[in-house]
């Protein structure tokens, strides 16, 4: 008993102590960060996200004296390559990438090659409010444990956006999507398989068509890949001739696909942002007749993170930005569909009433699905599935 009591006292003492130590560390980081310019490497194909990053730069500039330089990427892999090249050239300090928007295969690649700084998320005060129980993708990134090596900032889940003026009945499953495409040849497409959204289109099909979806949580092997993906390829072979341009041409990425929907070249499209329709209507990028649907058995969801390369020159500034991204006010701003419309990674149970209110007061839109309508979120398969699917697709359809 006395031992227990002693332990309790120690814990009671240690907790504020630990918190104080952490505070001290954080304030030290904030001091060091002042005056730093963070080279934030982020995919730049989406204007609303670019505008959001600009806003983040202005805010952390005002609040912390940290400048953000958005290094605009066509593909996150470019940043990974750059860090790899710097490591190869022996530049272990003063690297040129300070913060990178990352997840999935790119995170796995950097984690495996020990290209990341961390764990650092325990240092971020706002990270304590991240939802780590209900939103599992916040701690497990494409089956890979996050281990504090990247900090979440936005959530994604597959939805389909369609023009309600032209589409009456929406397909609610992968086989139904094929039937719809057959009835409406040339009116559906998906982004290039080299783009994450394109390979996600096939992964979503794989989830429903694989004999046993549970194997997707483990790495793909030479032994099981062919058998597991065979039904998906059969489905795709049947679908492809009915796609836009007979599937011989594909939009490079999500925004290019959205442009096709806006131009009336297609009737529906896949998206990773549940608020895509609402955001795009507001920005004048899609007609106000677009709506959102998901498949009955659920759709794949994941979390976007920011990570800091091991050789980053401005690690403190990068952490300040990562923490700012998790600030409830920032998260609410990001969730506003007039800004970016991204669903928050925070646990609302850990927010104060005033902070929660910011989210409750966000504007509504008929194009915005409710949490109930979004249905089940399926966990991302292991990154090896994505890589193999992309390679196999190239083998089959690049001629």
């Amino acid at each position, binding site marked *: 008993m006395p031992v227990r009591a002693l332990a309790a006292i120690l814990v009671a003492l240690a907790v504020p102590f630990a918190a104080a130590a952490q505070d001290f560390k954080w304030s030290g980081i904030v001091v060091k960060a002042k005056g730093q310019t963070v*080279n934030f490497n982020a995919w*730049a*194909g*989406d*204007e609303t996200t*670019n*505008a959001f990053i*600009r806003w983040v730069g202005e805010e952390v500039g005002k609040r912390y004296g940290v400048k953000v*330089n958005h*290094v*605009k990427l*066509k*593909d*996150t*892999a*470019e940043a*990974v*390559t*750059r860090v*790899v*090249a*710097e490591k*190869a*050239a022996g*530049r272990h300090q003063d690297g*040129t990438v300070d913060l990178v928007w990352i997840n999935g*295969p*790119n995170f796995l*690649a950097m984690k495996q090659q020990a290209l990341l700084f961390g764990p650092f998320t325990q240092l971020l005060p706002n990270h304590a409010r991240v939802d780590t129980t209900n939103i599992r993708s916040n701690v497990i990134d494409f089956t890979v444990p996050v281990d504090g090596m990247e900090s979440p900032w936005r959530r994604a889940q597959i939805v389909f956006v369609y023009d309600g003026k032209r589409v009456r009945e929406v397909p609610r499953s992968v086989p139904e999507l094929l039937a719809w495409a057959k009835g409406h*040849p*040339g009116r559906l497409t998906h982004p*290039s398989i*080299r783009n994450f959204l394109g390979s996600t289109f096939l992964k979503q099909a794989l989830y429903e068509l694989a004999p046993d979806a549970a194997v997707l949580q483990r790495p793909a092997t030479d032994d099981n890949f062919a058998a597991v993906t065979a039904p998906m390829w059969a489905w795709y072979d049947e679908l492809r001739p009915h796609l*836009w*341009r007979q599937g*011989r*041409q*594909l*939009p*490079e*990425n*999500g*925004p290019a*696909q*959205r*442009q*096709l929907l*806006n*131009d*009336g*070249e297609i009737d529906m499209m896949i998206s990773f942002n549940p608020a895509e329709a609402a955001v795009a209507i507001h*920005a*004048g*990028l899609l*007609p106000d007749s677009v709506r959102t649907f998901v498949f009955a058995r659920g759709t794949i969801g994941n979390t976007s993170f920011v990570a800091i390369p091991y050789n980053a020159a401005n690690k403190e500034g990068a952490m300040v930005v990562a923490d700012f991204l998790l600030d409830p006010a920032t998260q609410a701003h990001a969730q506003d569909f007039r800004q970016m419309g991204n669903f928050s990674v925070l646990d609302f149970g850990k927010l104060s009433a005033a902070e929660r209110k910011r989210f409750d007061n966000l504007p509504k839109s008929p194009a915005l699905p409710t949490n109930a309508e979004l249905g089940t979120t399926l966990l991302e398969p292991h990154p090896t599935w994505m890589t193999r699917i992309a390679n196999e697709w*190239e*083998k089959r*359809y*690049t*001629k």
Partner: protein
Amino acid sequence: MGEAVHEVTVDRRGLLSWMPALTVGAFMLPIGAGLIGTLLPAFGYLPAIGGSEFGLDPWRRLFAYPGFATSVTVTLVTGVVTALLAVGIAFGFCAWAHDWRWFRRIGAWLAPILSTPHSAIAIGFAFLVAPSGWIARALSPWLTGWVLPPDIATVHDPRGLALVFGLLLKEVPYLVLMIVGALQQVPARQHLAIAHALGYSRAAAWIKVILPQIYPQIRLPVYAVIAFSLSVVDVALILGPSNPPPLAVLAVRWFTDADIQFYFPAAAAATLLLVLVIAVIAGWFALERVAMTTGRRWIARGGRRGVVAAGARAAAFGFGGLFVLSVLAIVGMGVWSFATEWRFPDAWPPALSLANWMRRLDGLAHPAWITFVVGVLATAIALALVLSCLENESRGRRRTGTGALWLLYVPLLVPQVAFLFGGQVLLVRANFDGTIVAVVWAHLIFVLPYLFLSLADPWRAFDPRYARTAASLGASPARVFWRIKLPILLRPVLIASAVAFAVSVGQYLATVFAGNGRVATLTTDAVTLAAGADRRVIGAYALAQAIFPLVAYIGAAVLPALLYARRRAIAGVS
């Protein structure tokens, strides 16, 4: 007397005599080093990423790429077809148009198109010809009956037709300008008068009498068009096929792959591209020989009319079509930048507003500033180097031979991918990548030749008697240069600077690699956005891209007149 002056000037050359070597070194060294940096990994050698032994594995991987054969075919076909059409249309148009009064001032007409970066025109062209694009919108549904855009591949078509057209929009005006320049060096008018007197039609006279005389002078520009068409990256990204893409795009895609091991096949692809360019130019050279012998017989046969006139007229139509398309491409993007929304099949946006520009101004300001700084620095350095080379040449009375001309063309003949990657590795090694200085240097490689080529002829045509008169009045060579030559030649100097500035503004690959993705200009941002962003934003970037060089051109045209308002003879009214 003249001799004496000459000797005095020779003695005072000193530092100036090193300038040609310095100038050639400024762009030849990075190209040479870059080529080696690409060749070594193409054969498996790049110790930094684990390639320590020479071997053919990179080539095996390149050949094993599923779309390899198609990629090479597309590269060759689009490149060769573009070059053939560009040369045919340019020659045909000049044959048809050469004796119109406006033809002599065609340079002024083409300047806006020539100064607009390739990528800006390509972006606008993509919107023009898309099945849901401006042309289809203007004709739908009243003529076409299309309520929805048809499912036809135009932009990004697998055969690369859109790419060919997109390239022609710029390559044809470029060749025409080169021809106009060459025409001034032959007594074209007299020869044509004789040919007319002998009963040759206008077009036939030009093709049979003038063309053979000027071809040697436009041979290098033609080769540059071939090399560019085979190895272009930005226009191919915007208009070309993507699965598989042309070889140059494939190389860039692999160079930037997350898996660093792709660096090896990427280097192999870049090397193969270099081989293809050399092979096609060699093939073209062989064709020139054949054309020369058969052409001589054809000319000697003495046909007065025949198909030449019809061909020239067709080429003139083609030229006019391209001109209109280029203008519409830029105008279309301009309209987009002011549109609130604009959907098929509306031929015009329902509403125009300044809101888009107001919103984008913040984002535009930084890349615009970088574009301006890099352009001005590259132009200023190149101008200093070129002027000292030319001054050195005129004081030494030694003309740069054809060998030097070939050297100047090296950056325009060697595919950019073949040396920029190797160059990037060197820059990273030197901890020098991603700086403005690195970008300026990379731009200098391309800015220098263009500046030299546009300034050399007017400079050499400078009447030496002015300088001699000044010298005989006791002026030092430096004083002659600053007080006599430069003011008299201000107009061509400014025009050449505007050309150089435009070249800098348009650089895509050089900026991406030297800047290591961290130095964003209007052009790099526009190409990134062209992959699919909001057309209103792309429109703003494309228009900004087009306006920058245009302002430089207008400045170059207006400034001398303003400066020399009272000295009309110097202002170059002639």
